[in-house]
Each structure stands twice: as structure tokens, then as C-alpha cells.
């Protein structure tokens, strides 16, 4: 299937794996890229040298394109931006801010730049700054979220910019892909479903909790701090929401979540850790290899889109 996104990125299928901190490491990114999608290494809060190692490990496994997601609030963002350019990474997605200061550096290195946007104004600004595409991510997503839904955000962004739009948030199967294409998207980005992939290194407790999760099992913490995060309800979210209700200050809330994603992903502490997942978690029923996930999505999606594409 060809869209502007598959052409720009040089990938077979219009399926991109979300740049999830801790979760999106080299095994998962390599598996998604090898299966014809775009795998992404999530740099999260990691140091630049760690990101370089991850990039090199993906290159050992696949010659296909892959990307790096840079969380711009990472104190080492400048160094990571340079690593990405040095290592010849083909694609960068950015979150938590405005990547414009790296734009020239990346363009010169031939890196395609795809900021994640949560509003029309941000999408327009990124297009003006030279972005090659944008990811319009709705609040159905896991992890850090905006306030608009995918259904509302995607068509409005599509109308506002000329560059291609990738839809994210609440998409986990071929129906989601077809729906996103109907809204004008030219690719989809999936996080939650890939967390449950066979190649995903998240702790078995994390995977089990995700697979067990129902439609209503996620909640949003951090609305009062201006940095809302979606994760699966557990003891931590319960305490966090209680503190928020009582008007706890930022530092007190921070104490609860400092290192909590790592705790869940690496140590399997799904009681006190942060088990980030999207609202679509209820649709994820089993662990599957990335290749199978992508094949299933494409088969179902293409059948649904058959009449129009």
C-alpha cells in the first residue's frame, strides 16, 4: 500500500510504532521495521550514549528504515539530536515541545522530522518550520496526552496542513487504520498493541496487565500539573488521584511517579509503578509477533478500505 508517508519514509506498510520510553527499545523497533512498518526507539529520559547503542543494535538486525523519538524535555536532547544525525537515522519523531532548533541540523543530515502534535495551531507551526509530516495524537493514547480525541483532532489537522498526517491514539487493528484513513490520515501510529508484542521486552506482569485490561481500565493522572498521563488504574494512580483531589503540590506528586514507569516496565511492579497504556488496551487480547500484528492490521484494514483505495 502506497501513501505519501510510505514513500517519504521508505516503508512497506503505513504502520508506525510509537516511541514509548523504556518500552520502545532496540528489539521492538527492529522487529517492527523488519516486518515492514517503522520501528522507533523511544529515547525518553535516556542519556545520549544509551540512545547511540540502541541505534547501533537495531542496525545490526535490519537494513530497513527506523526512527528515534526524542522527548524534548530530556536534559540531553541536544546530544541526542546530534547522535541521530551522526548515526544516519532516517526518521525522528518529537514529543513534549518545539523541535525547531534542531530542524536545520537534521535536514542537513537527511533526517525526516515528524513532530507529534496535539492541536491544529501546533501542526501549522511545525509545517512552517519544515516538518515532513506530523503525528496527530488523540487523548485515547497511553502515556503523555493532549486533550482532543483522535476522531476530532485528525480531520482538523488534515484540513489545516499540506504535509501528510499520521493518526495516533485509540488505534489497534485494521478497523482503526481504515477509520483513520477515512479521516484523512496517511499512516497510523500504534503504541499499546506493540507493547504486547512477542518482541517487546516489558516485564511479563506489565504484558499480563495490559492483555487483561478492559475498556474502562485506564485513567488520567497529572491533569492538575499540566502534564496529563494515561495509564492503567492501580494503587499508584489511586493514590495520585487522591492527592490531586486534596490539592497536593507538584513536588509531592512527583515523588509518586519518579522512576515509576521503569519500575513497571523493567521490574514488573504493576502495583506501585506506572503501567502506561491507551484506552484501546481492551482490544489487545494476546501476545503476537510484530510481523503477525502488522499483517493482521493490513489485511483487515485493506478489506475495509477496498472500496475506496
Amino acid at each position: 500500500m502506497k501513501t505519501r508517508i510510505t514513500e517519504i519514509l521508505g516503508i512497506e506498510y503505513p504502520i508506525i510504532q510509537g516511541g514509548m520510553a523504556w518500552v520502545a527499545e532496540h528489539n521492538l523497533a527492529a522487529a517492527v521495521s523488519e516486518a515492514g512498518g517503522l520501528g522507533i526507539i523511544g529515547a525518553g529520559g535516556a542519556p545520549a550514549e544509551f540512545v547511540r547503542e540502541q541505534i547501533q543494535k537495531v542496525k545490526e538486525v535490519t537494513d530497513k528504515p527506523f526512527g528515534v523519538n526524542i522527548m524534548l524535555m530530556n536534559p540531553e536532547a541536544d546530544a541526542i539530536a546530534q547522535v541521530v544525525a551522526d548515526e544516519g537515522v532516517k526518521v525522528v519523531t518529537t514529543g513534549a515541545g518545539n523541535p525547531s532548533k534542531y530542524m536545520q541540523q537534521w535536514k542537513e543530515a537527511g533526517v525526516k522530522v515528524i513532530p507529534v502534535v496535539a492541536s491544529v495551531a501546533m501542526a501549522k507551526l511545525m509545517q512552517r518550520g519544515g516538518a515532513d509530516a506530523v503525528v496527530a495524537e488523540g487523548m485515547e493514547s497511553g502515556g503523555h496526552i493532549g486533550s482532543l480525541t483522535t476522531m476530532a483532532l485528525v480531520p482538523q489537522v488534515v484540513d489545516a496542513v499540506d504535509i501528510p498526517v499520521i493518526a495516533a491514539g485509540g488505534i489497534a487493528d485494521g478497523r482503526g487504520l481504515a477509520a483513520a484513513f477515512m479521516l484523512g490520515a496517511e499512516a497510523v501510529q500504534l503504541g499499546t498493541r506493540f507493547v504486547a508484542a512477542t518482541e517487546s521486552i516489558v516485564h511479563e506482569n506489565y504484558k499480563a496487565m495490559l492483555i487483561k485490561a478492559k475498556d474502562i481500565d485506564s485513567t488520567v493522572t497529572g491533569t492538575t500539573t499540566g502534564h496529563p498521563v494515561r495509564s492503567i488504574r492501580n494503587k499508584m494512580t489511586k493514590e495520585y488521584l487522591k492527592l490531586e483531589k486534596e490539592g497536593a503540590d507538584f513536588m509531592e506528586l512527583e515523588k509518586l511517579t519518579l522512576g515509576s514507569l521503569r519500575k513497571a516496565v523493567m521490574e514488573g511492579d504493576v502495583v506501585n509503578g506506572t503501567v502506561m497504556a491507551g484506552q484501546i488496551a481492551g482490544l489487545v487480547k494476546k501476545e503476537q509477533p510484530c510481523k503477525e500484528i502488522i499483517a493482521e492490521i493490513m489485511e483487515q484494514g485493506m478489506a475495509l478500505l477496498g472500496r475506496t483505495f
Partner: protein
Amino acid sequence: MLERVKEIIEEQLNIEDVEITEETRFKEDLDADSLDLFELVDAFQEEYGVEIPPEDLEQITTVGAIIKYLQDKGVDA
């Protein structure tokens, strides 16, 4: 120009009865988050027909800074 700029800010951020001077800072004084700033920039572009590239956002932190920015770009006021 300050008057019209103030109106745009009030409209975009849904605030009223807040004193806005050239020294007013968007983030600290008006509680604007990054998405609010993108909305503001978009509104200023439409109003004044000036292209504001994203790399210039860092320098636009106060009301006075946006006025000076627009004037430097040739906006007459």
C-alpha cells in the same frame, strides 16, 4: 498596538480583568502553556499577516517581546 495585542491575548487565553502590560509574561503571569502559545502565535500571524517560524518562539516570552517582534517584521503601529 498594545491595545489590539491585549485583545488578542484576552480572546485566545479566555481571560478578562487581568492587567496586561508590556512586562507581562505569557507563561508565568498568564498561565499559558505551550499549546496556548501556539494558538497565540497563530492568531498574531492571522491578524498581522506576519510569518512567525517556530524557531522564533523562544524569544517571544512577554507581551512587549511580541510587540517588538511584530514591529521588527515591519508591522506598522
